[in-house]
């Protein structure tokens, strides 16, 4: 049920971020629902495939949609139970998302375009640098709750022990927000609005897609953003004690807040120089590991 709500709402999140950016820079901006119309338009079109591509190129959009979908199934979206959680599923969570990225990188290389190769290489580099931050955050959550499944860490019977662990959890939330900025290809790492292939990272890897395939990828990217936005929201706003509808409302409000925050970040800072991005990602890991040390000390 909450999964369905999220699936319907996900394409609005990039729209909210874009709208925030437009308002803050004094423009009117595209409507929040723009991505829905884009998806609708793309689905009715046909797809064009380059003659140099192989089956890999066609697999990637499907993987790009299915992997975030499966990963969403591991999250306790209503604050209680995940549709299919199990012990240690946070590794599966990270692996699924890495798999989606891996197929997209392969597909980008498959096109044989040099720009796409460059984008793929950067995408892979940043993804591998952001993974420590994600895992260290999960370590802190596991230490704080004593649970090894995402369901137990983020929802479950007992709420997160705010109080003694508050500083560590705050750092985890900030670290997860940095992870979101990277994984959703937002500004300090990547610029979703850039028009120059040389500076694109995520955008260039999907450059050769058209029609329904592009729709799948866009929707998959929106799901990815919703997924990673749900992580800090779940850390900051424990929803286990609320009735289901209220928990869902809190989640949606949290997601919108995170999207607005992304928009604010995008309009308040420029993209980092490429050589500076690893520093940003290491900072995210440092925050998470500082949280882990604190959790071990107390």
């Amino acid at each position, binding site marked *: 049920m909450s999964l369905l709500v999220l699936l319907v709402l996900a394409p609005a999140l990039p729209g909210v971020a874009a709208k925030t950016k437009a308002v803050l820079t004094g423009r009117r901006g595209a409507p929040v629902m723009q991505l829905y119309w884009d998806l609708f338009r793309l689905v009715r079109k046909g797809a064009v495939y380059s003659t140099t591509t192989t089956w890999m190129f066609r697999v990637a959009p499907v993987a790009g949609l299915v992997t975030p979908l499966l990963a969403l199934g591991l999250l306790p979206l209503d604050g209680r139970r995940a549709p299919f959680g199990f012990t240690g599923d946070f590794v599966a969570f990270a692996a699924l998302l890495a798999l989606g990225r891996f197929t997209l990188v392969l597909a980008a290389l498959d096109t044989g375009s040099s720009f796409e190769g460059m984008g793929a290489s950067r995408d892979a580099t940043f993804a591998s640098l952001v993974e420590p931050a994600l895992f260290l955050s999960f370590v802190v959550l596991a230490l704080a709750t004593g649970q090894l499944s995402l369901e137990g860490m983020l929802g479950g019977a007992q709420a997160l022990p705010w109080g003694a662990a508050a*500083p560590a959890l705050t750092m985890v939330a900030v670290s997860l927000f940095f992870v979101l900025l990277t994984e959703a290809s937002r500004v300090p790492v990547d610029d979703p609005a850039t028009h120059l292939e040389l500076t694109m990272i995520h955008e260039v890897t999907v450059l050769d897609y058209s029609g329904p395939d592009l729709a799948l990828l866009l929707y998959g990217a929106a799901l990815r953003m919703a997924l990673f936005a749900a992580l800090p929201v779940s850390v900051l706003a424990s929803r286990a004690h609320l009735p289901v509808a209220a928990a869902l409302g809190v989640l949606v409000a949290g997601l919108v807040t995170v999207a607005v925050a992304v928009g604010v970040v995008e309009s308040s800072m420029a993209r980092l120089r490429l050589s*500076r991005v690893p*520093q940003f990602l290491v900072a995210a890991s*440092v925050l998470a*590991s*500082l949280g882990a*040390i604190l959790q*071990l*000390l107390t």
Partner: protein
Amino acid sequence: MERLADLLLLLVLLFGFLILGTTRLTTCIRAVAVQGGLLGLLPLVLHPQWSVHTLGLAAGTILVKAIVLPAFLIWAIRESAVRREVEPRVGYVASLVLGIFAVAVAGAVATRLPVPGEHPVLLVTTSLACVIMGLQVLATRAKALLQVVGYLMLENGIYVFGLTSLDRVPFLVEIGVLLDVFVGVFIMGIVVFHINREFDSLDSARLTELRD
């Protein structure tokens, strides 16, 4: 109160990481100023029965560490017109990773160290981590001004350690230390200023080539 102290100590650590990770000289100085200000608030939080001793220490620390010294360092930057980048010998990413190791080591030591009296673990951790990070800045940043910043960080760490025995250390000793730091930084600032005027570079590695 304990919570608030933890929060202050944590912010001190985070600003330490900011110094290790930033590329700008002025950000380093501002961060060390904020660190000094936070440390000035710390005795007020740790010892809620405010005596003249704690109040004087807090006021003195904030005045010297958060206002006078940073203003002086920023003046030195402006007057000597140095380049505003940090130009480290060890890269930013490596510095940050070393910093997290420093905190881990400090935490491991702090839980075993028999410090008399009752204090939050984070207090001793922060003090040791600040000392190690200060040494790291001293060792890895070539700019003379940043060595002053590293020295200040080191002193901040020692100050935090001093807070574990606030009621036993006489007021005069604390103020004396503060004065020493003040004079030290003042002299370093003047020296930096004059070195720069004579040799138009502040890279301390090149000081080894000096002859008469």
